[in-house]
């Protein structure tokens, strides 16, 4: 399946674009996507934290991804 991942803040700078398209096995868990992205962009592995959001909610490591999901990579937030 083809996943479109929205990028923000430092994650967008590291990858160099605001949307990343990734080819992934069907029902891929979040943890595997994170491992794949950290391998491809080692600077992502140096962040204080890196989460995945699916449809505007923080996803768990074992949550499975689907092509129609709205997926985003969430580097450490700093609002307020």
């Amino acid at each position: 399946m083809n996943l479109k991942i929205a990028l923000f803040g430092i994650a967008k700078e590291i990858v160099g674009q605001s949307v990343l398209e990734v080819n992934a096995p069907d029902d891929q868990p979040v943890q595997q996507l994170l491992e794949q992205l950290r391998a491809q962009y080692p600077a992502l592995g140096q962040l204080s934290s890196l989460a995945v959001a699916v449809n505007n909610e923080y996803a768990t490591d074992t949550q499975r991804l689907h092509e129609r999901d709205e997926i985003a990579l969430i580097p450490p937030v700093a609002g307020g």
Partner: protein
Amino acid sequence: MITIDLTDQPIDVSAALQLVQADGAGAVNTFIGTVRNKSTGRPVVRLEYEAYDSMALHQLRKVATQAQERWPMLENVVVIHRKGTLQIGDVAVVVAVSTPHRAESFAACQYIIDTLKQVVTIWKKEFYEDGDVWVAAHP
């Protein structure tokens, strides 16, 4: 009533205070976060907030709803966060709550701003005279 907003325009603090007023509320507590001119000892010249809008609004509403569940006497909650470029002294965020009595008002207001900082998808970039840094990005 919960009012949530994310805006690239200057925040009108007095309008936010009017929104939070309630006849049953004897206490209104407001937190105003402003841009300061230094960070970890380094002079800051301006900053930029970037947001994942749909998730930030959803998470802000969730935090406000959690506060209402925790303090059922909460009357109104207003949370407005700025995005875009901000100068020193600009208002970055306003959290205002109203309750019958003051203790819950202080507690709910603090809960909302603390939780906002942990979960809401907003990122801050500080600009110095000689560079810039995404806040909290690195250990």
